[in-house]
C-alpha cells in the first residue's frame, strides 16, 4: 500500500495497471488525455505493458478489443465525443463480449470547458447494455478501475467508467495496492467473435439474459449506499458521481441531514432506489450531465404520490456543470456570506493562439487571399486553429467534429458554393480527414483543403501525430490529388505575400487543391529547446 498524488484520470490509469493491464489505447482529447499520458510514462519506466496513441478513437477501440480477444486486459480511453467515433466497435463489442477484461473510459465535459457538446456517456452504457461505473473521488476512480476488469471477465462484457472534467482534472492523494499479474494469452472463441447474424442473435440473447444479474450486482455494489433519515419522511436525495460530493459538502455538519442514496453504478441499483423513494415524499436527483437517473425514475407518468425534482423539473439548470453553489440552492440552503464582487467590468480572457503560432500566419494569408471574394466559406476543424474563429482573425465559419471540415466543404461545393475552403490540422487529418479527401479526390471536387501541419497534436498538449511532413505529402498524393495542385507553404511573416499568391492560385483552380502549411508548433519547439 502506498499513497500517491494523482489526477482523477491518473487514478483510473493506475487502477488499471494494478489490475494487470497489458495494453492501453487512446486518441488525445480533453479531459481524457491524461489517462494515456500517464500510462505511456509508466510503460516507459516499467516496460511491462503497452500504451500507445492511436490514429483515432475507433482504431483505439478496435486495438483494445483485439487485445481483449487475445485474453489480455485492455483499456481504451477518450473524451465523450471520442466515443461517437468509436461507437461502431463499442456497440458491437457488447455482442462479441470481452475475453480479457476490457475497460472503456469515457470522460464527459459538462459545461463544455473544451468541447462542442455535453453528451452524457451513461446513455452509451445503457445503449450497449453494459455495466458502468461513475466515481465520485480519486480513491473510487482507482478502486473502480481495478474492480472493473474482474467484473468484465466475470460477465464477459466490456465495462464503462464514466468521468467528468472536474474529477479528471482534480488532484488528490490515493491509496494504492499491490498489482495483480497480467493474464496469459488465451484466444477468444471464433463463433462468439464472428458477428454473422446466426452468431450475433445468440450473443445478443446472452446479453439480454445477463441484464437482471447486472442490476443485482449494481444493487449490491459497495460503491452505492443508502443512508435513511428515519425521522424525516418528507425529503430525500439521489446523487451520483461528483454531484454526491456537492450534496455532502452542503449538508456537512448538519445534525439531521436528509436521506440520501449515492449512485455510482449502472444499470441503476433498482432495489436501493425503491427503498429511498418509498421512504420519502419528494426526491431530488443530483447528477452532472443529462437527467439520466431522473428521467428513468420519473418515466412517462411519474411516480404516483411522489414528487421527483431535478433538471427536468427546473430545480437544477438543464445545461452546464453543477457546482457546490447550485446544489446548495437546490437543497434550499442559503448562500454563504462572501465578499462582494468588485463591481468593475472585468474583461474576459479567452484562450488564444500563442505568440508566433504558425496558424496565425496561415490565417493572415488566407484572409488576405479571400479578400474581395464574395460568399467565401472556410470550414474549420477541431484543434488550436479553431481559435481562428476569434478576433483578430475571425477567419472561419464552421467547426463541428473531427474531420468535418473536408466533408462539409465538399457538400457545400457540390451544391454550388464557391470558394469552399477547408482548414484542418495534421493530426485531425490523420484522425478522419483522409477518407473524405479520398472521395473528393476521385470526384475532383472544386475546393481547397489547407492542412495545417504543425507536426503535433497541439491543443491537447503535444501528443504525436501520424500524418506529418513527407509522409503527409505522400499520403495526399497517394489519395489521388493532382500533383500540380498539392502546394506547400511555410507560414511565416516573411513569406506572407508569396503564401497569399499560392492560396489565391489554388482557390482559382476549379478542382481539388491541397495546400500544406508546414511549420512546427512553437510550444513543441520550446519543449525541445529546454
Amino acid at each position: 500500500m502506498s499513497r500517491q498524488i494523482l489526477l482523477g484520470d491518473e487514478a483510473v490509469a493506475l487502477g488499471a495497471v494494478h489490475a494487470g493491464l497489458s495494453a492501453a489505447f487512446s486518441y488525445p482529447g480533453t479531459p481524457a488525455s491524461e489517462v494515456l499520458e500517464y500510462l505511456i510514462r509508466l510503460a516507459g519506466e516499467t516496460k511491462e505493458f503497452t500504451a500507445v496513441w492511436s490514429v483515432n478513437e475507433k482504431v483505439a477501440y478496435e486495438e483494445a478489443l483485439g487485445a481483449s480477444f487475445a485474453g489480455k486486459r485492455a483499456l481504451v480511453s477518450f473524451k465523450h465525443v471520442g466515443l461517437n467515433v468509436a461507437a461502431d466497435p463499442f456497440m458491437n463489442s457488447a455482442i462479441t463480449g470481452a475475453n480479457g477484461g476490457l475497460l472503456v473510459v469515457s470522460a464527459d465535459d459538462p459545461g463544455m470547458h473544451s468541447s462542442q457538446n455535453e453528451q452524457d456517456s451513461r446513455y452509451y452504457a445503457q445503449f450497449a447494455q453494459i455495466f458502468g461505473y461513475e466515481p465520485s473521488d480519486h480513491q473510487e476512480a482507482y478502486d473502480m478501475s481495478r474492480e472493473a476488469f474482474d467484473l468484465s471477465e466475470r460477465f464477459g462484457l466490456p465495462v464503462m467508467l464514466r468521468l467528468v472534467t472536474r474529477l479528471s482534472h482534480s488532484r488528490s492523494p490515493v491509496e494504492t495496492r499491490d498489482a495483480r499479474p497480467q493474464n496469459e494469452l488465451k484466444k477468444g472463441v471464433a463463433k462468439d467473435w464472428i458477428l454473422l447474424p446466426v452468431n450475433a442473435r445468440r450473443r445478443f440473447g446472452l446479453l439480454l439474459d445477463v441484464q437482471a444479474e447486472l442490476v443485482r450486482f449494481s444493487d449490491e455494489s459497495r460503491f452505492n449506499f443508502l443512508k435513511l433519515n428515519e425521522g424525516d419522511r418528507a425529503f430525500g436525495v439521489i446523487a451520483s458521481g461528483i454531484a454526491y460530493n456537492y450534496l455532502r459538502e452542503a449538508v456537512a455538519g448538519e445534525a439531521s441531514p436528509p436521506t440520501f442514496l449515492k449512485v455510482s453504478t449502472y444499470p441503476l441499483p433498482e432495489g436501493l432506489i425503491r427503498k429511498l423513494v418509498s421512504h420519502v415524499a419528494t426526491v431530488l436527483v443530483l447528477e452532472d450531465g443529462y437527467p439520466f437517473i431522473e428521467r428513468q425514475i420519473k418515466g412517462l407518468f411519474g411516480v404516483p404520490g411522489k414528487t421527483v425534482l431535478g433538471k427536468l423539473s427546473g430545480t437544477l439548470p438543464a445545461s452546464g456543470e453543477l457546482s457546490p453553489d447550485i446544489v446548495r440552492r437546490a437543497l434550499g440552503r442559503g448562500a454563504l456570506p462572501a465578499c462582494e464582487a468588485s463591481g468593475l467590468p472585468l474583461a474576459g480572457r479567452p484562450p488564444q493562439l500563442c505568440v508566433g503560432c504558425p496558424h496565425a500566419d496561415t490565417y493572415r494569408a488566407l484572409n488576405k487571399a479571400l479578400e474581395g471574394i464574395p460568399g467565401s466559406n472556410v470550414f474549420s476543424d477541431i484543434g488550436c486553429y479553431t481559435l481562428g474563429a476569434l478576433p483578430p482573425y475571425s477567419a472561419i465559419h464552421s467547426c463541428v467534429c473531427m474531420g468535418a471540415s473536408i466533408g462539409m466543404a465538399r457538400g457545400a461545393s457540390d451544391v454550388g458554393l464557391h470558394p469552399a475552403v477547408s482548414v484542418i490540422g495534421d493530426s485531425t487529418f490523420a484522425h478522419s480527414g483522409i477518407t473524405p479527401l479520398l472521395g473528393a479526390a476521385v470526384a475532383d471536387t472544386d475546393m481547397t483543403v489547407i492542412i495545417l501541419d504543425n507536426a503535433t497534436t497541439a491543443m491537447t498538449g503535444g501528443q504525436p501525430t501520424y500524418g506529418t511532413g513527407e509522409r503527409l505529402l505522400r499520403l495526399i498524393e497517394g489519395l489521388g490529388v493532382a500533383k500540380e495542385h498539392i502546394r506547400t507553404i511555410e507560414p511565416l511573416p516573411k513569406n506572407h505575400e508569396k503564401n497569399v499568391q499560392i492560396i489565391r492560385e489554388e482557390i482559382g483552380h476549379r478542382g481539388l487543391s491541397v495546400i500544406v502549411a508546414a511549420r512546427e508548433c512553437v510550444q513543441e519547439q520550446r519543449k525541445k529547446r529546454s
Partner: protein
Amino acid sequence: MKQDIILAGVGGQGILSIAYVIDNAALADGLFFKQAEVHGMAQRGGAVQSHMRLSDGTIWSDLIPKGEADMILSVEPLEALRYLDCLRPDGIVVTSSTPFRNIPDYPDLGQVLEALNKAPRSVVVDSEKLAKEAGTVKAQNIVLLGAAAAFLILKETSLLQTIDALFRSRGMPVLEANLKAFELGKKAAGRP
C-alpha cells in the same frame, strides 16, 4: 484545520507549479487535499484557476463553494479580482501587481489595484521586480508563493523542500533563483 485557496493567473504563468508545491507540501504535512485545475483550451493565454482545498479531515467537493475561500493567491491582479466574490468575509488576497496585458480591453490598472485594496485583507507585491531581482522573471509564481507562505497552514520547510525537489533537476542557478524568489516574496509580504 482547513484552508481553501483559489489560485489564479494566466495560462503559462506557472499556476500549476504553485499547486504542485502546495500539493506535495500538504502530503508531507499529513494533510488531505483536493486540487481542481483547468487543462486544455484555457491554457493558451486564457484565464487559469485552480481550487486548492487543504484539510486534516474529509474534503467533499473538489470546487470551493462561494464564500468558503480563505485565500485568493494570484500571479496577476485582474485575475485576482475575478474571484473576489468567492472569498470569505475575512479572507485574504495575495496577488501580484504586475498586469499581464494580452487582451485589448484590459481595465485601468489603478482601478484594479484600488478594488483589490478593498478586500478585507490584501497583500500586493510587485512580482515582476522581485523575480528579476531573484534572477529570473519566470519565478513570479514562486514570489507569490513566498508572499503567501506565512498565511498558509503548511510548514514552510515542507514548501521549501518541494521547491527544491521541483527545481533541482533544472540546475542550481534555477533552483537558487526560485529559493531567492520565495524569500523576496516573503519579505515583501512583511514576513521576514
